[in-house]
């Protein structure tokens, strides 16, 4: 008999998980920790001493550092062993991504190569293509780029104008077009390029070697941040691409592009944790050295509030990242066994399945990092505005995360759209449960069960937030029908509610799972959970109310709004003291060690 069915993407809205079912960062084994340490050691030895030089746009230096990371095997972490990699689990890939995420521009160049530059061939290449390219990409002998965006085709990726026309002898596709914002353009050897064959409606994908005649790489863009990563336009002028270099089938390019974006979003969600932890460490070190009014600024409540909030959001986001990573590993394993998928296909199918979660983690993570780096600059005061400090670089480098891998605006729409579509498809009974709740909003209660324990109470709160989400989803669907897809403000409200729920639930499960092993520190992690849930409930209430009054009014609106208020009611928390205790640990450790 089969074990409990795996949790589907978005299903968390209607299904509660148990703490022992989820993976938490405290579960990393010794080997995973050693891999993370290697990534950290590499940044310290090879990247940090060169940050200023890299930021001058020194393409050769970046290339050299990338190659060194290849020599260490870091580029092969996500690549199956049969193609020269180390075939690590998705959890390990994400841990490596987190650690490298503290590498500023290097992180962007490295992740672009290892992710979108290499994995499309691992996932969609035929055996010849994989054997030809992947072993060299996994060691850094070849460096890769991914060419999707065009001047007129950004978020609307399928509207690209690049064309591929079969040559008369049938041996080549003649590629013409222009791509922009191409990471690693300045030194890449291989490119995954998307173009439409003849008058196709949908993109196809090709592997293009940078030295093919007709490939022209422009100068690097002058950017706000990540200045060390090469970003340029690439022009294709009658480039003869051998027909055997088509990746996947004709017209499969758009699917490949979207799948790869799912992977990129997940990894971005991990990258930001590394960058956030670094900014927090920089901030607390500074606050522990900087004196004003004769005392360290880390003793001030206003600074402690900032430090604690930086920790809380980073810790919460991290909880969700590794939870979904293990879900992906489990699904990949299942696909390999049940459907006999090869490792590459199983990987991309597994990642793409969790489309709701990857969009949540991309949006939430990039906004956590932007919050963290902003507060890091603020804690540094005037020094934070000086280019001498890491936090200044971190502040500028962070901003792109809300833009690339699909803007946060597109991703918010995807969170709601994908969750609703999956529910409609029958993956989970969201609409059925929502309809029941909406029918009797005045009967919804929020009472503690008899003998309710600490974690049961927190799970009750999360469950209630899920009910609020269902009320809004059902109400909006009923009132607006198909028009809902045009009401982006409401879709955004729903996306933010769904995100808050996923992160809150992941955090609650992590704190519960690790509670017994924390010893005397356990109460500190409960502080993190207390503050987060208290805030999440207030945010969900606000977003739900905003949404409700946008599509219904009168008695019905008031009735639903009343139910949402009831459901969002949580016990009061002394957030000031809780944040102070969290900050005290950070100040005492003088580094992020949660």
């Amino acid at each position, binding site marked *: 008999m089969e074990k409990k069915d795996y949790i589907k993407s978005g299903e968390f809205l209607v299904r509660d998980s148990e703490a022992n079912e989820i993976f938490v960062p405290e579960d990393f084994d010794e*080997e995973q920790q050693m891999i993370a340490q290697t990534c950290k*050691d590499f940044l310290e030895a090879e990247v940090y001493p060169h940050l200023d030089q890299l930021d001058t746009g020194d393409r050769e230096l970046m290339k050299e550092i990338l190659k060194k990371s290849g*020599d260490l*095997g*870091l580029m092969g972490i996500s690549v199956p062993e049969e193609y020269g990699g180390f075939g690590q689990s998705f959890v390990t890939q994400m841990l490596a991504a987190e650690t490298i995420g503290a590498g500023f521009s290097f992180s962007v160049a490295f992740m672009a190569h290892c992710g979108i530059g290499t994995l499309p061939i691992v996932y969609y290449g035929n055996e010849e293509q994989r054997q030809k390219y992947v072993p060299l990409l996994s060691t850094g002998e070849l460096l890769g780029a991914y060419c999707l965006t065009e001047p007129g085709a950004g978020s609307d990726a399928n509207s690209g104008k690049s064309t591929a026309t079969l040559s008369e002898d049938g041996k080549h596709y003649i590629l013409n077009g222009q791509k922009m914002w191409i990471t690693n353009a300045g030194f890449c050897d291989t490119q995954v390029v998307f173009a439409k064959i003849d008058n196709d409606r949908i993109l196809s994908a090709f592997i293009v070697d940078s030295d093919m005649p007709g490939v022209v790489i422009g100068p690097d863009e002058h950017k706000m941040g990540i200045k060390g990563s090469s970003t340029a336009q690439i022009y294709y002028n009658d480039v003869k691409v051998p027909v055997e270099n088509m990746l996947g089938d004709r017209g499969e390019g758009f699917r490949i592009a979207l799948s790869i974006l799912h992977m990129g979003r997940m990894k971005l969600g991990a990258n930001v944790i590394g960058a956030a932890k670094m900014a927090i460490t920089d901030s607390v070190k500074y606050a522990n050295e900087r004196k004003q009014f004769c*005392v360290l600024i880390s003793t001030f409540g206003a600074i402690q509030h900032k430090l604690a909030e930086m920790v809380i959001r980073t810790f919460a986001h991290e909880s969700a990242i590794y939870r979904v990573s293990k879900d992906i590993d489990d699904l990949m394993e299942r696909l390999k066994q049940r459907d006999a998928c090869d490792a590459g296909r199983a990987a991309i199918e597994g990642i793409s399945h969790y489309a709701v979660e990857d969009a949540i983690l991309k949006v939430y993570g990039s906004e956590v990092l932007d919050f963290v780096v902003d507060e890091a600059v603020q804690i540094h005061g005037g020094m934070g505005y000086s280019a001498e400090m890491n936090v200044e670089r971190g502040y500028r480098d962070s901003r792109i995360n809300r833009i690339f891998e699909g803007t946060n605006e597109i991703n918010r729409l995807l969170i709601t759209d994908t969750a609703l579509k999956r529910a409609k498809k029958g993956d989970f009974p969201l609409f059925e449960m929502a309809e029941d709740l909406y029918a009797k909003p005045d009967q919804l209660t929020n009472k503690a069960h008899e003998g309710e324990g600490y974690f049961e109470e927190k799970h009750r709160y999360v469950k209630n937030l899920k009910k609020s989400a269902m009320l809004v989803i059902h109400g909006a669907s009923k009132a607006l029908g198909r028009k809902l897809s045009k009401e982006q403000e409401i879709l955004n409200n729903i996306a933010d509610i769904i995100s808050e729920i996923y992160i809150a639930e992941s955090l609650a499960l992590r704190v519960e799972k690790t509670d017994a092993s924390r010893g005397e520190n356990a109460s500190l992690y409960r502080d993190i959970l207390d503050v987060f849930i208290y805030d999440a409930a207030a945010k969900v209430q606000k977003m739900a109310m905003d949404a409700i009054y946008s599509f219904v009014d009168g008695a019905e609106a008031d009735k639903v709004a009343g139910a949402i208020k009831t459901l969002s009611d949580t016990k009061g928390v002394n957030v000031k003291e809780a944040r102070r205790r969290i900050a005290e640990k950070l100040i005492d450790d003088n*580094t992020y060690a949660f």
Partner: protein
Amino acid sequence: MNILVCISHVPDTTTKIKFTDNNTRLDVSGIQWVINPWDELSLTRALELKDDASCGINTVSVAHVGPVSAEPTIRKALAIGADNAYRVDTEPLDAYQVAAQLAQIVKAGAFDIILCGIESSDYNGSNVGGMLAEFLDLPSVSGISKLEIKEGKVHITREIDGGKEMLISPTPFVGIVQKGIAKEPRIAAMRGIMMARKKPIQLVDAVQTEPLSETLEFEPPKPRPACKFVDPDQPGKLIELLQNEAKVI
């Protein structure tokens, strides 16, 4: 030739050190452990010598005296490139006990060069290398900043006051190593990490020894006192504080 590198398992230098049991024991909770930096440099140099075929090094082994909790540190040494490892399963209380346990590993093996860091970054005792040589009745050289093998002979450079001393040591010998012996510690490569799980860590029973010293107490540095402001209209107050409190004038 075979090299044995003795490695100590120490708190990462960024760790905030706390004590327990009335300041008589290190509080190990929450500590991030690493290979003692001097030992790591010894290991790096040993591996460099092995990489150079002309040096004729067959194996590089590592040895540690400590409980099972140190195995991640030992495995890191294996991931960096050591061929095998020994762990004496005991919790030593002083340098004498460490040296006594290490001596039995050397006696049981066939090592030509035994390397120890000049000190460990936790207790900074600088005793183990010398004691180990004494247990083994082997020559020892301390303060080694350069170690080369030419035509089967070990050429050593050691730092002395105001200059350097160059010498050739017979083997086997105990080399006590300081910074400069290798440029940077090696980073464990992915392949090394994967291979480390297959490399053996040989468990060695501890021999019976008694420590020669006992730690009475650790005393952390006193926190710096808060600065005091003196009103510019009261220069006398400043002089009084400098004289009586700071005692600098």
